[in-house]
């Protein structure tokens, strides 16, 4: 059986940063397993710029950002198994993988990092009524067809959902000569970053219909048109508000789902709020020696934060191999307070950190607000924000001193001022 100190599942930005960080901490038998024919993951199809402002202090395209890590990897002895699919991870950290080159393999890891990323929600997940013609794509699939494989997916486009990938594709299709007729969002606010509304929609006069959704898709063989209706506060279509668009393509940007089949199969404790594994402060899952990082844990807005989180996971995996299990004395569980939909990490072992970095999302758009961290009825920390939005992940730092004062439970909530 092939034995490694660390096996990283997934060679996207999370897996690359995790492997490099573990190498820097002294591990010398590291394997990255990647199912595609190259490293870099989804960054390879994200040809737009805006990546790396935090990590590299410059603005890079997706392929450039991934390329930096692939270059750094060349100076290490980290092994990479491409075109290799992991089928199962056992609780004993055996990784079952299959590839054309090596057939069926069972690999043993002293530690394992889960970095499988996420996938897109599809038409089936949101149940759009109507015909079932060709021409309905998830935005990311269309992005891969267009940017890597060289296929123009359509000429007259309606985009459902205002997530960042949908917005980016609105601009991309327009530049390639398509007409993007509308971007339709069921919520009263956009799920994407403000800058993308500006530079992808407003720059090209593409209308954004908030509180609207597609209520019918028509077409024999290929999409011929869609009906868009306004929705009420409960997201039910309002009769009489129908608009018709003649289009040949519908792109869906309606959310991402962490890809956790392997995690569930290994019976690793999941968090129903994130659809990812429950993790400790160092990105360790409830199964000792197995860590998770990046979009497989929770869906990020920025790859830079994926990199930072994944380096933490890589360093922690190295510490696990070199020093054994972390001390869980004084364990703190994080809970959602008002307006907060999840936190990552969900558990903090104060003895194991200097500062605990906590990510979370809010459930509504707020103006000037305060993030309040409560231990029972006692407020132990507060953070001011000029505005909060569900589309923007929030990040706070809890210093060790505060954690030592906390009880066994901390609640993170928001209050609009």
């Amino acid at each position: 059986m092939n034995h490694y100190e660390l096996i990283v599942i997934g060679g996207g930005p999370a897996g690359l940063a995790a492997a490099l960080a573990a190498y820097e901490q002294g591990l010398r038998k590291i394997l990255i397993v990647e199912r595609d024919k190259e490293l870099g993951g989804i960054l390879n199809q994200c040809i737009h710029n805006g990546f790396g402002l935090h990590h590299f202090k410059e603005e890079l395209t997706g392929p450039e950002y991934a390329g930096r890590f692939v270059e750094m990897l060349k100076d290490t002895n980290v092994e990479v198994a491409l075109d290799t699919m992991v089928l199962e991870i056992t609780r004993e950290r055996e990784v079952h993988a299959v590839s054309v080159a090596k057939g069926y393999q069972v690999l043993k890891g002293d530690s394992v990092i889960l970095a499988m990323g996420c996938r897109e929600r599809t038409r089936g997940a949101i149940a759009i009524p109507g015909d079932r013609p060709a021409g309905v794509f998830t935005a990311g699939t269309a992005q891969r067809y267009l940017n890597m494989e060289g296929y123009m997916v359509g000429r007259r486009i309606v985009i459902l959902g205002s997530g960042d990938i949908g917005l980016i594709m609105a601009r991309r299709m327009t530049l390639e000569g398509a007409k993007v007729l509308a971007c339709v969002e069921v919520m009263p606010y956009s799920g994407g970053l403000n800058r993308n509304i500006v530079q992808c929609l407003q720059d090209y006069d593409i209308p954004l219909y908030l509180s609207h959704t597609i209520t019918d898709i028509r077409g024999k063989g290929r999409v011929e048109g869609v009906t868009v209706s306004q929705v009420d506060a409960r997201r039910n279509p309002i009769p009489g508000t129908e608009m018709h668009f003649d289009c040949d393509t519908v792109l869906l940007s309606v959310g991402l789902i962490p890809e956790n089949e392997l995690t569930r199969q290994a019976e690793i404790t999941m968090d129903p709020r994130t659809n990812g594994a429950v993790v400790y402060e160092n990105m360790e899952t409830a199964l000792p020696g197995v860590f998770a990082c990046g979009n497989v844990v929770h869906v990020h807005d920025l790859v830079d934060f994926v990199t930072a989180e994944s380096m933490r996971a890589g360093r922690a995996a190295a510490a696990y191999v070199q020093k054994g299990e972390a001390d869980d004395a004084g364990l703190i569980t994080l809970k959602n307070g008002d307006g907060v939909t999840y936190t990552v990490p969900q558990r903090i072992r104060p003895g194991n950190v200097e500062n605990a970095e906590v990510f979370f999302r809010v459930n509504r758009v707020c103006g000037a607000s305060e993030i309040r961290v409560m231990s029972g009825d006692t407020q132990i920390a507060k953070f001011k924000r000029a505005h909060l939005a569900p589309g923007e992940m929030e990040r706070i730092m809890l210093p060790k001193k505060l954690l030592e004062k906390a009880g066994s439970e901390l609640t993170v909530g928001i209050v609009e001022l």
Partner: protein
Amino acid sequence: MKELICIVCPKGCHLKVDEANDYAVTGNGCPRGAAYGKAELTNPTRVLTSTVKIDGAHHRRCPVKTDRAVAKGKLFELMDLLDGVQLTAPVKVGQIIIENAAGTGANIVCCKNLDAVK
């Protein structure tokens, strides 16, 4: 007074630009926001990213970008220019594909190392 959302970084600061007062910017979190606010109302620019055809690599398209921001009005002209580009692998990240593209002063550069494959 014009209100803008800064697009320099993902933070998306809410800017206010005073056209009557030499495009003075408020609401910006950093100096780049001030520069963006002024430029957006005087000469708006964008970095263009796209792809060009490539032969002999394991993909059919090679990602490219302008190496600096170009006038917004030039974007579609640059897209037309990229239509005619045909690369052959190998190419290296940072390699100049077109110098001073369409007279913008910006070069079109390659964004990815693509090796030659048989």
